[in-house]
């Protein structure tokens, strides 16, 4: 938008990192009102802007902060005061009103406050940003993993990437490199020989198979584990833990983390543990601090811009790190401000003013919208994914117009396979449509089918029990017994296969060896 010739490289698909693995909260800032006022201010500023530029990616659920019997009532005045100082609109909601709006919430909640939290679709939002960037001339190369940075003396002049799809090396020369690699920012900086101390803080999230609540519900207390439920699309997500990990790529989801999410969720919604659990996932927060800390909850959620020229005497490299999904735009703004400065040009930021592609109707997303569309278009018979109402047309568009390299890429575009059956029916259909349209060597389609089944399994494995286990058994019946998909010709390993939730060096689960 500011006239630079830019290339974005991402090691997998867009949102492969933390963006695609969070709970989907558009922060009001209430969560940080007491502990991290700077982050709170950034959140509410951006909350207002994002509602304007990408309303179609946001469901305006509103948010509650509730005081349960397990929470310290003395926190309440500090919370209200913190919100007011940060400029976050906050109003108390009588408990009986709260229960009318959210009947499943714990009736023993003593206080409830309403803030402008919302649910955000980070897949759609990322695609909207990428599309806008493309329209302004940027090139976006997914499945390009940076393998090294090219340095000439004290100047970074480019990067070498590995194209995972074509399995070849790609050299990119650039006047300036922006390291926005999130939890991987330390690794990228290290390739240029500078140290950036990123603490990957793992957070585990558990999705319930339906909308347990329609409002974002936070515990009114200092941020802690399992203290939030976010309704997003057809599910409700309980988050999250915060565990320091050594490697942003390889980390397990521990049974205690799942048990803790469900136990804490139970305090907000009694009976939650008996409800159907859909899936779990984990992402790593890119927490940055110049000094080493023991507890990652104490690290600021505000963002940091590192100019390595002034910090380390290394020209041509800027790192933007820390921050929240909610503050991504502001982070980009200050980064490009610095880029302009570096090039000695004055070009103003417009990202807070110009709506993103797809926001033309200036309407929030709402839960019933996909169904309304199916009804309007009479597309009931054209559903590839019945759970998430993805039509054949949607899938075809994702394959022919999008940059889908895997069925998982289609999922991020159209929510294929994200509902209760977790790909049971739509994996086969998507593979069939993919094959009919592209007609690749059939072994490539076979790998795509396998990879997607494994990708869904990855998130089921930590939580599988109850009705979801029964569903999974049906999916096994389909893929093993009806289709015999485990005996298809071709390779069974693929470079685009999902990375399982296990520590580096393979599983340490107390399970049978494979």
């Amino acid at each position: 938008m500011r006239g630079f010739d830019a290339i974005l490289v991402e090691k997998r698909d867009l949102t492969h990192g933390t963006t695609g693995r969070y709970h989907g909260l558009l922060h009001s800032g209430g969560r940080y009102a007491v502990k991290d006022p700077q982050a709170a201010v950034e959140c509410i500023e951006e909350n207002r802007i994002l509602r304007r530029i990408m309303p179609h990616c946001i469901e305006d659920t509103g948010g509650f902060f509730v005081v349960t019997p397990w929470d310290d009532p003395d926190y309440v005045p500090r919370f209200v005061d913190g919100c007011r100082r940060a400029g976050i609109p906050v109003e108390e909601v009588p408990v009986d009103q709260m229960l009318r709006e959210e009947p499943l919430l714990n009736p023993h909640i003593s206080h409830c406050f309403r803030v402008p939290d919302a649910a955000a679709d980070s897949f759609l939002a990322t695609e909207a940003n990428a599309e806008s960037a493309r329209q302004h001339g940027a090139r976006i190369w997914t499945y390009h993993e940076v393998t090294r940075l090219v340095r000439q003396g004290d100047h970074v002049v480019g990067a070498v990437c590995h194209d995972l799809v074509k399995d070849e090396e790609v050299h990119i020369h650039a006047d300036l490199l922006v390291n926005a690699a999130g939890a991987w920012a330390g690794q990228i900086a290290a390739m240029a020989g500078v140290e950036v101390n990123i603490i990957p803080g793992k957070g585990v999230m558990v999705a319930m198979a339906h909308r347990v609540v329609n409002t974002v519900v936070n515990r009114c207390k200092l941020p802690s584990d399992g203290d939030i439920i976010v309704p997003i699309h057809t599910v409700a997500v309980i988050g999250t833990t915060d565990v320091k990990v050594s490697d942003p790529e390889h980390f397990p989801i521990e049974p205690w983390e799942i048990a803790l999410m469900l136990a804490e969720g139970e305090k907000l919604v009694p009976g939650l543990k008996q409800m159907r659990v859909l899936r779990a996932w984990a992402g790593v927060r890119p927490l940055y601090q110049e000094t080493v800390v023991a507890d990652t909850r104490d690290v600021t959620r505000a963002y940091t811009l590192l100019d390595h020229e002034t910090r380390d005497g290394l020209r041509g490299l800027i790192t933007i790190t820390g921050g929240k999904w909610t503050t991504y735009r502001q982070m980009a703004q200050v980064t490009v401000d610095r880029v302009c400065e570096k090039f000695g040009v004055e070009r103003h930021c417009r990202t807070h003013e110009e709506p993103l592609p797809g926001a033309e109707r200036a309407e929030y997303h709402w839960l019933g919208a996909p169904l309304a569309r199916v009804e309007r278009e009479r597309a009931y018979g054209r559903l590839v994914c019945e759970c998430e109402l993805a039509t054949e047309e949607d899938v075809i568009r994702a394959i022919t117009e999008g940059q889908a390299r895997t069925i998982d890429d289609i999922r991020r575009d159209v929510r294929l396979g994200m509902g209760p059956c977790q790909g049971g029916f739509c994996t086969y259909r998507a593979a069939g449509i993919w094959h009919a349209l592209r007609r690749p060597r059939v072994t490539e389609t076979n790998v795509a089918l396998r990879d997607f089944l494994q990708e869904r399994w990855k998130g089921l494995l930590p939580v599988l029990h109850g009705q979801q286990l029964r569903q999974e058994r049906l999916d096994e019946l389909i893929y093993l017994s009806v289709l015999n998909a485990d005996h298809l010709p071709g390779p069974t390993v693929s470079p685009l296969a999902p990375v399982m939730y296990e520590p580096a060096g393979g599983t340490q689960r107390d399970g049978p060896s494979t």
Partner: protein
Amino acid sequence: MRPRVDVLVIGAGLAGLMAAWQAAVAGCRVRVITRGPGALFWHAGCVDVLGYAAQDTERPVAAPRDALLHLVNANPAHPYARVGLEGVETALSALQQVCEAAGYPLRGDLSHNWLLPSAVGAFRPTCLAPETMVSGDLARRDPLLIVGFEGMLDFYPELVADNLAEQERPARSVRLDLPSLRERRQLTPVTLAQLFEAPEFRRQVAEALRPKLGRAARVGFPAVLGVHRPLEVKQDLEAKLGREVFEIPTLPPSVPGMRLYTILVEAVRQAGGDVFTGMEAVRAEAENGRVQAVFTEAAARLNPHRAHAFVLATGGLLGGGIVADADGHLREVILGLPVQGPESQTKWFRQEFLASEDHPVYAAGVAVDERFRPVGAKGVPLYTNLFVAGMTLAGDDVIRRRALDGVAVATGYAVGQHAARSVQEAMR
């Protein structure tokens, strides 16, 4: 009070229906209660007896009889071992006779597994296949034409043909875009199967297909060639096309599975039994080591079903007869029978979904004695008049072994006889 029925069967999958039919044939008054149709509606509509042996998960079993012999010797607690090889053979022939009598023969026997194309074009090993599928035999190498329908989302002929070709079976695909289908908003396997019953629709299909036949010696359709008279549909298409015609099982709901369900329900009724759907068994009452009644829930109250003998054919983890809770306990839902399975939840699964070895939890189930009665820790039957069949039995991951239908048929058949014998004993 004298029970109105002798044998109450819970579950109307293949195992439950086989048991009910056998008990009825043996002269018992039989009632089947079921929440809904069982896994027949989901599966391929063939009888998989043993497709892949545990010791070689890559190559399909060529001769099920030999592999079964090995299996029952190696694993005496396996459901097949409880039935015995002869019992398996008898049960399969009995099913074949029922289907034959209904005009829907199942072809094959324990000496050989068919390899038939699946809806992704993999080679699917199965022991008994309906007449409508056997021309898909992949032991043959003559050219195939795979036919799909524009608008049908549950079958992709290109994928089938290309995978067959990749495995050295000459195959092409064609998609028919029939004007009469264009107005239809939904083209499920069942809709198409109903359409195929009409001669006029078959004429349209044949007409559209004839110019595209080329060198093909046989023509494969999704398994939608009619609900009630599939053989007639197949023969008519063969006459019109001048080629052999066969079916390939689709995603659920399975039309061939529905045919088997219909045939077996009819067989139970013919033998004097009843089948009631929409009845979910929720608990049971026992006294003096005998089950007295099983209760279904209706209109906010519990209805008792009393009988002399009870058959539990509730489908295990797949059917919902066994449930795994969040804390890692495996629970048999109606009687709270002990479930044999991995001690710890951390040992339930492997890291790979399509792992060739079993996910250990799927072999979990109810352990039984030689008469299929559930046993406690010391191997003593918990109830003298309760018999377990099908996937609720412990001992194997029958889906990974491709033994789902075979275990259901064999154990269902055996349990039907044990239940009948127990009724006769009680009457004496």
